[in-house]
C-alpha cells in the first residue's frame, strides 16, 4: 500500500548505470587483455567505452530527473529547485549509500571520460589506456554492485535487502555490458565464428538464471513468512514484469538463441545478434524495474 516513490526513472538509472558499468568492465578487460592487439578488438573496446560512458552519464541524469526538487523546478519554473541537486555535491555522507553513490558515479564518469580520452590521445598505443582500463574495471564492479547496495541498504525492505541481489545485479550488469559490446561488434561486422562470445554469454546467462530463481524462491518464502501475497507472484505487475520481462525475455530467450547457434554450429546472423542484445537489455531493465516495484508493494 505504500506509494511507489521509485519507478521508471530510478529503474532506468539502475539499469543504465549497470549497463554502462558492464560495458566499461568489458572494454576495460579487453584493453587489459592481449586481445587489444587486434584492431577490431581495439575498435570494440573504444566504442564500448564511449557507449559505456554515455550510459553512465545518462543513467546519472535519470536520478537527477527523478528528484522531486528537480521536477518541482521544472513544473514551477523554480531555478533554485531545478539546480537543487547540486546539494549532493556539497557534502559527503558516508552513512548514505546515495551519497556514496553520488561520488562513486562522479568518479566513475570522470575516469570513464579519461578512459575515452586515453584512446584518443595516444590512439595507437593501447598500453597508454591500461591504467585507465584498470581503474575503470574496478569502478565498474563498484558501480554495478552499488546499484544493488543502494536499495539493499533499506534493511526493512523484504525484497531489496536480499544480499543475492548484489550478485544478480553484477551478473546482469555484465551481461548488459556484453550485450552492448555485442551490438558494437555486430555493428563493426565482427563475427563470432568460434562461438566464444555465445559460449561465455550463455554461461553468464545461465548463472544469472540460477541466481534469479534462487532470489524468486527466497522472495516467495519471505512473503509467506510475513503473511503477504508473494511479492513476485505473476499476478502482480512486478511479478509479471519479473517473469515475462526479466526471466523469459531477458534470460531464457537469449539463452535459447545462444544455445541454438552453438548447437547448430551456425554463425548467428547480425539481426539475430541485435535481437539477442536487445532481449538481454530489455530483460535487465525489467529485472530492476520489477525489483523496485516489488519492494514497494507492502
Amino acid at each position: 500500500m505504500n506509494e511507489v516513490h521509485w519507478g521508471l526513472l530510478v529503474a532506468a538509472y539502475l539499469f543504465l548505470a549497470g549497463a554502462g558499468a558492464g560495458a566499461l568492465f568489458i572494454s576495460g578487460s579487453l584493453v587489459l587483455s592481449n586481445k587489444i592487439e587486434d584492431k577490431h578488438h581495439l575498435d570494440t573496446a573504444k566504442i564500448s567505452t564511449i557507449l559505456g560512458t554515455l550510459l553512465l552519464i545518462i543513467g546519472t541524469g535519470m536520478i537527477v530527473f527523478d528528484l522531486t526538487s528537480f521536477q518541482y523546478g521544472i513544473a514551477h519554473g523554480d531555478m533554485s529547485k531545478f539546480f537543487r541537486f547540486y546539494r549532493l555535491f556539497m557534502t559527503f555522507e558516508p552513512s548514505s549509500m546515495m551519497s556514496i553513490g553520488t561520488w562513486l558515479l562522479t568518479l566513475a564518469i570522470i575516469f570513464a571520460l579519461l578512459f575515452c580520452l586515453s584512446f584518443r590521445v595516444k590512439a595507437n598505443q593501447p598500453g597508454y589506456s591500461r591504467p585507465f582500463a584498470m581503474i575503470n574495471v574496478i569502478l565498474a564492479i563498484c558501480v554495478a554492485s552499488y546499484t544493488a547496495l543502494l536499495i539493499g541498504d533499506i534493511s526493512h525492505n523484504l525484497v531489496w535487502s536480499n544480499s543475492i541481489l548484489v550478485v544478480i545485479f553484477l551478473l546482469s550488469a555484465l551481461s548488459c555490458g556484453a550485450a552492448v559490446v555485442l551490438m558494437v561488434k555486430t555493428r563493426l561486422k565482427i563475427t563470432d565464428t568460434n562461438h566464444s562470445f555465445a559460449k561465455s554469454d550463455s554461461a553468464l546467462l545461465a548463472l544469472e538464471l540460477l541466481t534469479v530463481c534462487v532470489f524468486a524462491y527466497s522472495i516467495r518464502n519471505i512473503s509467506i513468512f510475513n503473511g503477504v501475497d508473494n511479492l513476485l507472484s505473476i499476478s502482480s505487475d512486478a511479478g509479471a514484469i519479473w517473469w515475462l520481462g526479466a526471466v523469459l525475455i531477458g534470460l531464457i530467450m537469449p539463452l535459447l538463441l545462444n544455445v541454438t547457434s552453438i548447437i547448430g554450429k551456425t554463425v548467428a546472423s547480425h539481426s539475430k545478434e541485435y535481437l539477442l542484445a536487445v532481449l538481454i537489455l530489455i530483460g535487465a531493465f525489467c529485472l530492476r524495474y520489477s525489483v523496485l516495484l516489488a519492494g514497494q508493494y507492502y
Partner: protein
Amino acid sequence: MLDRRRALKLLAGGAIATTGVMFIPAGSAIAAIRQQGKKRLAMVIDLSRCNGCKACVVSCGMENGTKPDEHRTQVIQTSAEIGNKQYAFNLPIMCNNCETPSCVSVCPTGATFKREEDGIVVVDSTLCIGCNYCIQACPYGGVRFTNSTTGTVDKCNFCIQRTSRGLLPACVETCTGGARVFGDINDVNSEISKLLSQSNPMVLQASKQTSPNVFYIGLTQEESNTAFSIHSPQLWQR
C-alpha cells in the same frame, strides 16, 4: 485474538504483520533515552481515549499547510472482532521522531537529521533534494511524503514551530478524546513522563529498531507488529 488479527489484516488495506515479531516494552527504550539526560520530546497516544474523530488529521493539515490529501498524521480505522464481538479500531499514526531513525543516515545531503536539543527529527527544506531515499528507508509507511507545495520531503516534526515556542502541537491541542499527550519524557515531572511510567506503553514495529518516540497505550502486540501505512484507503466512513 487470532480473529482480531485476521480482521485487521482484511480491512486495514495492505497492512501486514512484519518479520521479527518482537515484544519490546517501550520501558527499556525510554530508559535508554533518559540515560542521555537530554530533553526528549515525545507523544503518547492513549487508544482507549481515541474515538477516531480525525480532528488531529485536519488540524495538522491546517497548521502545517499540507494539501488536503497530504497527511503528516492519519487515523487508521477498521473493525476488529474479539470473542465474537465487533469493535472499532482507531489508530492514529505519524512519524515517530525515532531515537535511532533509519531515515536520517541514508540522507545524502544531511537535510534530515535528529536535533540534539530536543530529539525532533526535522527535514531542512532548503537542503532536501527530494531523492526519496529517506521515504524508502523509513519502515513506517507514508509518514514521510513529498510536500507538493515545496517539492521536498515533509513529515511530522512535532510542530516544531509551536513546540519550540512554548506551545503544544496542533493535533494535541484539538484532540477531542484527549488521547494525545505531548512533552519531554526526560522531565520526570511532565505529564507524559508520569503517563509513561504508570502505563504499559508500546510502540509500533519495535522490531525495526528505530526506537520510536511516539508511544501507544492500549496497543496489542499484534498491532504493534503490524506495518500500517498512512496511505491505507479510508474506507471507514461512520
